[in-house]
């Protein structure tokens, strides 16, 4: 396996009622600094994720759970109702049996990959790699890195809107939680970047 060991710190959440040990172990070996959490019900996994959206995470989510329990797709919807930034790898043993209406719910979401649960490890590790680099170029990740590199800026007030004032930490949290303010500031910062680029600054 030609994958360079990655020292990045992030969290991998595996939600699967019938956990595949080899997926867990391969990820653990490839990403020794990543924290891996496993959940055997979609509900407990979704609750854990929704409880703290400030973490840099990649989620492996099984598609099918027991008949009377929350399904992978329900967990996905619950997560998506709060954030569109989290990258989710959906795993299914029956790729061909996904209903067309469920497929429709997936097509508009670009933060998802759908894999068969018996794919070679290169496939899912490749997806993690791709998304780590994507995550790193995202506004929230750049902001987080800035905060880590400049700890003194962390709590300073950078913005005030109405009666609210926001530090860099606050802004990061607003973006990750995809609040109205978070989305607005994200859009404004991107506009600013484009403006600076066009004006050659």
């Amino acid at each position, binding site marked *: 396996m030609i994958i360079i060991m990655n020292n990045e710190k992030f969290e991998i959440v595996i939600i699967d009622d019938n956990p595949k040990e080899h997926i867990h172990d391969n990820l653990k*070996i490839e990403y020794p600094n990543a924290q891996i959490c496993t959940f055997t019900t979609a509900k407990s996994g979704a609750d854990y994720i929704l409880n703290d959206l400030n973490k840099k995470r990649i989620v492996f989510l099984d598609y099918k759970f*027991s008949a009377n329990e929350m399904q992978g797709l329900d967990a996905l919807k619950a997560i998506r109702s709060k954030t569109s930034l989290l990258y989710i790898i959906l795993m299914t043993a029956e790729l061909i049996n996904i209903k*067309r209406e469920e497929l*429709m719910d997936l097509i508009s979401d670009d933060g998802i990959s759908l894999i068969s*649960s018996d794919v070679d490890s290169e496939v899912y590790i490749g997806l993690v790699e791709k998304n780590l680099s994507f995550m790193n170029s995202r506004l929230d990740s750049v902001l987080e890195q800035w905060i880590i590199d400049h700890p003194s800026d962390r709590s300073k007030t950078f913005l005030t809107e109405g009666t609210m004032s926001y530090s860099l930490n606050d802004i990061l949290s607003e973006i990750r939680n995809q609040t109205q303010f978070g989305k607005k500031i994200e859009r404004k910062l991107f506009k600013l970047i484009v403006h600076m680029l066009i004006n050659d600054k």
Partner: protein
Amino acid sequence: MSDNGGILKWRFDVSTFRLIGRELITDRITALFELVKNCYDANSQSVEVVFENITPVIYKNIDGNDIIGPNPKCKILIKDNGYGMNIDDVRDKWMVIGTSSKRKNPISPAPYNRKCVGEKGIGRFAVDKLGDHVNIITKKINTNEWLNVNIDWTEYQRRQEVDEIILFTDIENRFSFIEGNPQDCGTILEISQIREIWTKEDVLRFSKEASRIVSPYITLTPGFNISITAAELDIRAKPIVPEKISSSTLDLSITFNKQNKTQETLIFNEQKHTINKKEIPIKKFGGISLKIFYFDENARRNYNRIYKGDQNKIDGLKIYRDGIITTPFAEAEADQNKKRDILGIDKRLWQDLFNKVSSREIIGHLDITKDENPLIIDATNRQDFIDNEEYKSLKEFIIEQLTAIEKYKIYRRELRKSNVRIEFEKALQDTDLFTESLKLIIKENPLLEPVLQPAVEQAEKTSSSVKKAEKIYQEAEKEFIRKENIYLSLMSLQQYAANLAHAVRTSLSKVKGGAEFFYKRYPNLLLEDYFIKYSKSIYLEMKTLNKVIDFMLSYAKSDLEFEDLEMNQLIKEILNSNEVTFETEGIETVVEVKDKFVIHCNKQFFIDILQNLIANSVKALKNKPYKIIKCTAYIESDKFVIFFSDNGCGIPVDKRDRVMELYYTTTADEGGAGLGLYIAKTRIESLKGAISIIESEFGDFGTTFKIEFPLKN
């Protein structure tokens, strides 16, 4: 202004579009039907579907062979008088994938406030399924111009074929404006370069599907009228009207009374053998109206003869909200086997194939309303409803109505059987009486003997023939019951064959994951522990797979015959066969089978059930100092009940629902693979029984399974 215009571009990649679109819209009928439903959502009162130049043409392909295909001039037009679109709607809704205004606004604009029936964002896929080119001519009310957008998929294909590197989003679609009357509004989709041939049957099939959009028993205000024109097929502005049903065996309907807060329900009157209505308080899902037509075998034959070659099928129950179809979304699925069974009507069949009413025996219209049934909520995918308590209760209520019909069906079947039996007996009595009378006449008038003797002999022959026929009938009936039992076993086999395939795949996936780990990482001293773990895991998974395969093979080997089994003796026999295990493990057994009674069932199945329960208990008792397995069985009214208990580690309440699922185990450390209880459960179900976990009879310790078999079977 009419020379104004410009260019619109797609906002997504075509390969995704095609790949997904063709998955979503499986056939032309669905595609066209979706477009008609969109007209309803756009507040139209009338829709006209026009087929032009539909007759196929013969042309020569590049090899010079004759090929039949759609006429290049063939067109399908869908014209509505709805609220139309403006340029922003086309650009921001029509040309963007994965968005749907209907998802956010499931109700159409006032004053109609219609519940949208079209699937979200599917119109563009539908058009693509029908043809390569579309003109969207559309206008909103109180505007002066019609917008005409020209979309040509072939442009993309053409430029790709000449190896031009082009993104689908680069393709330009021209639009222009045409002057119009401010009072006009609506949309015309003019689809050309039609992909497939449309035959008369296809057009009629579409017509039938479209006729189901509006409930035949509700008058819509304002209405929604659909018409079809296909001049070449001699169909001219043919209005599509929902057809009323005829020739059914039973025609039943129930409704509710809002003032009295009562709901009618169907019950079978055991004395009079009729289906009657009874009033009950309105259920939590609100008042509903339901019409059910039941067709017995003869009625089905008649119905199929009347609608021979037609698209009218006896195809179950449809749900209409405020007069418009809610579910199933008028599927164009010709194959009934592939239709969805959201109400669970056909799922019950394997429990009792011969007595349950299937969706192929009924046509039903369930009418619900926004106001009366607000808690019956469409699911996001709009193919079903949100699975809340109200919907569950509605499903139960519908099944209850079918139960009344099922009782009627059983009564009719039994009646037919007993009529045949009575007729045989009567025929036999009559011939015997006739023979006796002849013999009496001969005795009194011996002179008549030469004349009457041949008649006596003939009558005796007839009597013997009737006896033979009666015997054959009885044997045939027995044979039927035997086949019925085999069929039930096979039906249940089908159920777990699907589960087992899933199980085998899960195991193989684990084996493959472990093997891949070895293949790609071995040798590596740092990973030694992992190698040991994976070799063990592969070994154990293979063992599990073997068990699964043995279980499958047991079906091939096991005798599917049902026989009379003396329960007391059989239960003791099975427990005795485990004597060695019980002795080694130090398990005490208590067997209490009250009375001697005989059950007609499959011996191997019964052995499988008890053996698996025993194996489960042995594992659960592993670390207990004092071990008991107890089996009690008795007859309780019309049921044969078995209680199977142990005082082992027990099953936590929150896991009771799951322990009988395939591959779910709470005894993994003792080698449990999650198969035993699953096998027991499926075997019990295939004998029409049920198994549940109840409070342990040992109090705080252990587990008690309650198994029930209906006695009549």
